[in-house]
């Protein structure tokens, strides 16, 4: 059994939002946030946190970072029944918020030294971290002179200051060039080998499957599914698909006892791609015997977007770019609803 480093049990945090009334202009009510969240972080693993905009990913990360208090529920350390307060959480967690806009005449090293003061980080440690994130050549550059990618690296350096057991990364790949992103992912792998647990929230779900060990799908403040990719897919009843690529005439799949609704075909120039809902073990042999030109054949696992759509009941066609409204009612209600 994997060693658990942190457990959230029924953790709730709801943002306070203005809801003025004519005679009560200062009135605030409890709004969106995270609701009765249960989450287990295992040692040396990367947990991907995925959800639509406004799902509560950043709020969850802030709760884990000890920035926001847990209004209901508890945070436990490891497998033990030790309840952590926010101060203890901050001790063991390194937090990398989304898009920190470093600015000013202060140098990279000065900025790190200042924040390092809060974690008792020595100058030697700071120089080591600068080297680790690839900023040692820019340590004397003013913050205003940094590119977006360099700012991301600096924010990561701050998160690594206290040699944290848990690293929380909110959209860490934003602004990184492809080479930088690859180096960043390689660094994350190295950290996990050293036993650091990572929670990674990202919208860039395309390459996420190759990075993460576990996946948590969030929607409207709830974790809808959590586990390894296979576990999540299985829990959502998503089967792997057969993907066939070929050239020339597209075969009639109905001739091979496959219903039309179970096949999705894309044609581009002389090339075609067919995705079949279920695995078809003998289909390849039949197609080749019939002279169909096959260039690629593979079993494709459901991707993260499909899992998210299955978990939330949304579809790309229905939702489009629409952001989920904040004015929703929580999926589950509990006592002390408003005010």
């Amino acid at each position: 059994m994997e060693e658990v480093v942190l457990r959230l049990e029924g953790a709730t945090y709801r943002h306070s939002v203005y809801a003025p009334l004519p005679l009560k202009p200062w009135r605030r009510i409890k709004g969106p946030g995270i609701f009765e969240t249960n989450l287990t972080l295992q040692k040396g693993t990367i947990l991907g946190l995925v959800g639509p905009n406004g799902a509560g990913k950043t709020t969850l990360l802030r709760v884990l970072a000890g920035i926001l208090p847990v209004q209901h529920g508890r945070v436990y350390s490891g497998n033990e029944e030790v309840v952590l307060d926010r101060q203890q959480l901050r001790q063991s967690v390194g937090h990398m918020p989304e898009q920190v806009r470093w600015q000013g005449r202060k140098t990279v090293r000065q900025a790190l030294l200042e924040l390092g003061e809060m974690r008792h980080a020595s100058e030697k440690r700071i120089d080591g971290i600068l080297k680790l994130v690839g900023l040692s050549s820019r340590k004397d550059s003013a913050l205003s002179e940094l590119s977006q990618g360099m700012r991301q690296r600096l924010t990561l350096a701050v998160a690594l200051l206290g040699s944290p057991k848990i690293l929380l990364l909110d959209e860490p790949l934003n602004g990184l060039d492809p080479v930088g992103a690859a180096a960043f992912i390689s660094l994350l792998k190295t950290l996990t080998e050293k036993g650091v647990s990572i929670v990674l929230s990202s919208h860039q779900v395309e390459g996420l499957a190759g990075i993460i060990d576990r996946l948590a799908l969030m929607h409207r403040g709830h974790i809808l599914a959590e586990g390894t990719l296979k576990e999540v897919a299985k829990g959502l009843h998503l089967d792997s698909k057969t993907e066939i690529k070929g050239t020339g005439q597209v075969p009639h799949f109905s001739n091979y006892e496959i219903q039309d609704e179970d096949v999705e075909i894309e044609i581009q120039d002389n090339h075609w791609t067919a995705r079949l809902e279920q695995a078809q073990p003998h289909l390849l042999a039949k197609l080749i015997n019939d002279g169909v030109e096959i260039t690629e054949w593979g079993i494709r696992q459901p991707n993260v977007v499909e899992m998210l759509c299955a978990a939330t009941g949304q579809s790309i066609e229905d939702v489009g770019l629409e952001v989920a409204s904040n004015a929703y009612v929580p999926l589950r209600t509990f006592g002390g609803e408003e005010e």
Partner: protein
Amino acid sequence: MSDFNRVMKLARRLTLERMFSTRMYIMLPVLLLFIPGMAWGFSDPNIVLPGGHQPESAMEVLFYASLGVVFGATMCAVLLSYDAVSRERASGVLELRLSQPMPRAHQSLAMILGSWKAILIPTWILLIISVFIVRYRMGEWISFADFLVYFSSTALILLWYILFTLLASSYTREQGTAISFGVGMWFLFTFLWALITTMVAFASGVSIGQENDASWIMLEGALDLLSPNGVYHHLLETRLPQIDRGIVAWQSWFMGLLWTVLPSWAFIRRMEKILP
């Protein structure tokens, strides 16, 4: 390293950052003109103040020169610290700070001390220069007790303005709002307070405009306890026996304590609850 040392080290970094900032270089000539400049002017042996009055002692000259602190140094305090929280909040750096294990109360304390020292050190240096100017022009030193009261009162008024501005900065999301609050507050206490005093006097039936009217002086003295500038002058007046505005020394120091403790408490409490 103890918590105290950590707070002091962090405060030192913040002080250096602000003290050598561009805006300090811009404000320094203003401070130079206001503080030693006023000390030079008021220590002129031939000076005759409105009402035909002539300063009698070095402390009295420095009391008049304290207008430089009220007009110049307090404004610099506001301009130095208005974005201490709001800028970091807007840029996301505040979220990084709040995720550090250092208690928020300690972080707030470091922020207060850092911003305060950034204006206090240059102001004190200019006050020391002023003391030498007065000695040069009048041939008289201020006593050690005068020196202590003068320097500690100046430190206190700067601290109060820093606290108000930090508090405003922590509540506002836009830096423009923070600076508007700071400058507005400075304007209220520096220029508009006389108007408020006059209005209260009128409402209380005290004859306005009679400068030597005892009830007017007493009322003005009492109302000044509600203004940081007023308390500052009350504190300085504790070393000027010829001035009696109906407020005894302990009342001035007690109000000084309240003006220090209440905004500090409010700011620390605010920072403990602040959201990034």
